[in-house]
Structures are given as C-alpha cells and as structure tokens.
C-alpha cells in the first residue's frame, strides 16, 4: 500500500518534470524564432507560399464558420432579446460579440485545427525521414525555411481571415434578420457599429496575430522535435492542435485583461 502510494507519487513527479521540460523547450524554441528572425536568409518566396497555404486554403473553412456563426447568433439571440423588449439592439449585440470575441477566437481555433495538424504532421514527417537533416547539411537553414516562414505567415494571415470571418458573420446575421423581420440594411449596419470603437476593432482583430504566432510556433515545435516514426508524427499533430487551442484561450484572457486595462470597457 505504502509502496504503491510512493510509486504513484514518483510517477506524478516525473510527469510534472516531463511537462516542465517540454514547456521549457517550447519557450526556447520560441526564443530561437526571435533570435533568428533578423538573420539572413529571408525566405520571401516560401513566405508567400505559406501565406497562400494558410490563407487561400482556409478561405472556405473560415467563410462557412463566419456565416454560420452570424446566422445562429441572430436566431438564438432574437428570442431572448424579445423577452426583454430589447430586440432593437440585436445588430449591436451581434457586432459586439462577433468582433470582440467570437470572431477572433473561433477563427483562430478553427485555424488551429486545420493548420496545427497540417504543420505538425508535415514538419514531423520531414524530421523522421531526415529531410530536415538533408536541408541542414545542404546549408539551407531549415529553421528559416520551415519555421520562420510558417510563423510569419500565420501572424500576417490570421487577422485578415478574422476580418473576413467577422464580415461574413455580420452578413449572416443581417440576412437572418431580413428573413425574420425584413430589417433594412442601413438600420442593421448603423446600429451594429454604433458602439464599436476603432480600438475594439484593431485590438480584437490584431490579437489574432498573437494566436497565429501561438498556433504556428507550437505546431512547428511539435513537428521539429518529433523522434520516432509515423505514430509519433500523428501524436505530434494531435498535440499541436490541443496545445495551440489551450494556449489561445489562455492568451485571450491575458490580451482581454490588458486591453481593458489600457482602453477601458465599452462604457468607459
């Protein structure tokens, strides 16, 4: 009995140590990005290719996500707002919730699912088949070619896709309002943007650059440090998605807290 308690205590300690070690490695990997980012070579063509991979190929996914959120939010909220006699603020509420929170976070989570798995698996399989070593011995700087390009692409493309998702969510909400109560588009969009400040738009859209950084750096790290074979590559892809999503939520709390501290809330 005492032995089994001691061994489970040891197991917990070793799991905690392994977790701390991986977290430290991830932090060092992220630091490596900032250290090498300023150095040559600048992989412009690969950056464009990655932006295309991240952006163009996620376009349909984010479009469907945005439009659906808008329609569903409008449908779900209307009943509640009618109950409180506040139906007129539906566009307002829709725009606030989409632009400030749901758009950025949901877009980033959806992209984390698609890109985290893709980047983790691609770089992971390059690692286990020695393609990264092959880049290294050919003096082709794999960290620049594989990591920096993907991280930059995500930093740039995440806010763009978020704006697109937000736009389609508002269009979806508007179309639902037209079909439900024939709302005029001028009334809808004027009301929607009544309480949105420029700082809300900028901060809440640009925070997705941080989420993009998180998704790319976590996924690249998971792939880059894979050891083993196809099973480990699959696990790396899965861990990339899970950890990216978790860190997005944590980062969101921090960014929102900071933005409230700096810019105050809507009523401020």
């Amino acid at each position: 009995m005492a032995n089994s308690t001691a061994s489970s205590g040891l197991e917990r300690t070793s799991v905690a140590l392994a977790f701390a070690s991986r977290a430290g490695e991830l932090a060092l990997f992220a630091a490596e990005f900032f250290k090498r980012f300023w150095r040559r070579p600048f992989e412009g063509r690969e950056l464009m290719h990655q932006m295309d991979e991240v952006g163009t190929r996620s376009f349909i996914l984010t479009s469907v996500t945005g439009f659906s959120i808008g329609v569903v939010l409008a449908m779900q909220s209307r009943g509640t707002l009618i109950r409180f006699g506040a139906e007129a603020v539906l566009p307002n509420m829709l725009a606030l919730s989409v632009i400030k929170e749901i758009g950025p976070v949901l877009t980033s989570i959806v992209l984390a699912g698609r890109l985290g798995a893709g980047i983790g698996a691609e770089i992971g399989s390059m690692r286990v088949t020695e393609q990264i070593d092959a880049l290294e011995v050919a003096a082709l700087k794999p960290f620049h070619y594989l990591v920096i390009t993907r991280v930059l692409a995500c930093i740039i493309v995440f806010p763009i896709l978020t704006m697109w998702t937000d736009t389609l969510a508002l269009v979806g909400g508007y179309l639902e309002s037209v079909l439900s109560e024939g709302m005029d588009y001028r009334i809808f969009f004027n009301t929607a943007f009544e309480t949105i400040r420029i700082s809300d738009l900028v901060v809440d859209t640009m925070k997705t650059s941080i989420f993009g950084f998180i998704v790319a750096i976590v996924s690249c790290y998971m792939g880059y440090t894979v050891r083993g074979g196809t099973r480990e590559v699959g696990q790396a892809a899965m861990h990339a998605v899970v950890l990216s999503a978790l860190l997005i939520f944590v980062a969101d709390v921090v960014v929102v807290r900071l933005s409230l501290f700096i810019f105050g809330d809507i009523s401020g």
Partner: protein
Amino acid sequence: MGERDRHTVSNGAPPQEVIVDIRGLVKGFGAKEVLKGIDLRVSEGESAVVMGGSGTGKSVLVKHAVGLLYPDAGEVWALGQRVDKLDDDALDRLRLSTGYVFQGGALFDSMTVFENIGFILERHTELSRAERKDRIHEALDWVNLPDKGPQYPAELSGGQKKRVGLARAIILKPDLMFYDEPTTGLDPISVRTVSELILRLRDERGISSITITHDLLCAEIIADSVHFLHEGHFVASGSLDEVSTTPHPEIRNFFGT
C-alpha cells in the same frame, strides 16, 4: 585522468592530407553512451567504411562530421576545420564542400526530382536557369536516371531514391562524401550499381568518403579501409580481409566466419 578528459586533449589541426580526423569521440543520449572514445582518420582520396551491427552508433558517428550532432567529448575535424567549434556560417561553408547521402534518400517529398536537385543549385550558385538545368541533367545522367526529373520521390523505387540522393549530394561538386547505408534494402544488382557509383566518385573525382554500411557486397566494392564498430569502440580496423578475419566474436558473427 578519466576517459572523457583524456579524449579532450587537442594536438591541433591534422596534416593537410588527412580529410577527416575524429579524436576520442564520446557521445551519449540520456544515460546511454553510444560512442565511447572513437578515433578515425580518413586520408585524401580514401574510401573508409564503417561497419557494425544495427544500433551501434555508426550513423551517430558520421553525423558529427557535418555538425548534425555535437560530441560530449573529443574532437571532430573535417577538411582541416574543427567541426564542433565552427559558428553557423563557417559550418554552412564546410557543409557546401561535403555531400551526404541519407539512408532513405531524404528527398524533399513535396518537390520533383528535378526540383530536389535544382533547389540546392538555386540557393548556392549564381548559375542561370539554363545552366542549372544542364547541371541537373548532367547529374541525373551520371546516376543513370536521365528521365526521372519530373517525377516525385514517392514514384521512385528505393534504389532510384538513393541514386537521386547521390545526384543531389554531388551537385555542388564536394570534396568529401558521407554515405549512410547507401545500399540497405536494395537488391544485389542495385547494390552493385550504387556501390560502383560511389567508387567512380573516388576514382574520377578523387572524392574522399566515409560510408556506413553493413552490406558486405558494398564494402567489398568500395572499401579502402574498414572499421568495425561494437559497443562504442572500433574493435578492428584495416582492410576488409584483415577485419573480417579478426578473431572477435562479434566480427565472426557478423561476417559468418
């Protein structure tokens, strides 16, 4: 003085005719020490072969010579430079003078054969597109795969992948080559083809090399010297005949003598 300390003593750069000089190389992963003080010298134009069972650290050994791994103790010299002390830029310059053929080919699977080779030329030379094209065709002709340029690695056989890997490795005309299991998993005809290509590189271009293999036919064709690795040490070095007749139980087992 402990074993590690003993191996860290430097005698300076090796003579010019020594292309690779590994001195007292110690390397471990976690608690497991894989290489326990390896010494290896390869002279200009020499084709050295490292043999041994699976998991004995043969690949680990050569990866030190191109800076893919760093020693826990000891020194690694290649082409007159202390590899384990080079900064990033100097290491890149050294790497451009070497070629490395990986066990599975390590071809970039999102690129065609043509792009796999052209990618390196594009990054490291000032050649025009037409000149690059000529060099790639020349390299593919040399490995007898003239029509494989447009194909992707997934469409090639194991032997073809290794030959493309060889073409890619020699495209910058290196002075030193490393072959990691260049013939593993190939049929005897392909083994002979790849081995003869390695031999031609030595004879026609004077390229020194270290080859990791446990393929006897390959060793017979290419080896000037053979070094047998067992439990972190070279237990025998010399010609293939000398090594294969060494009365060491592991060697007897390996060569079936």
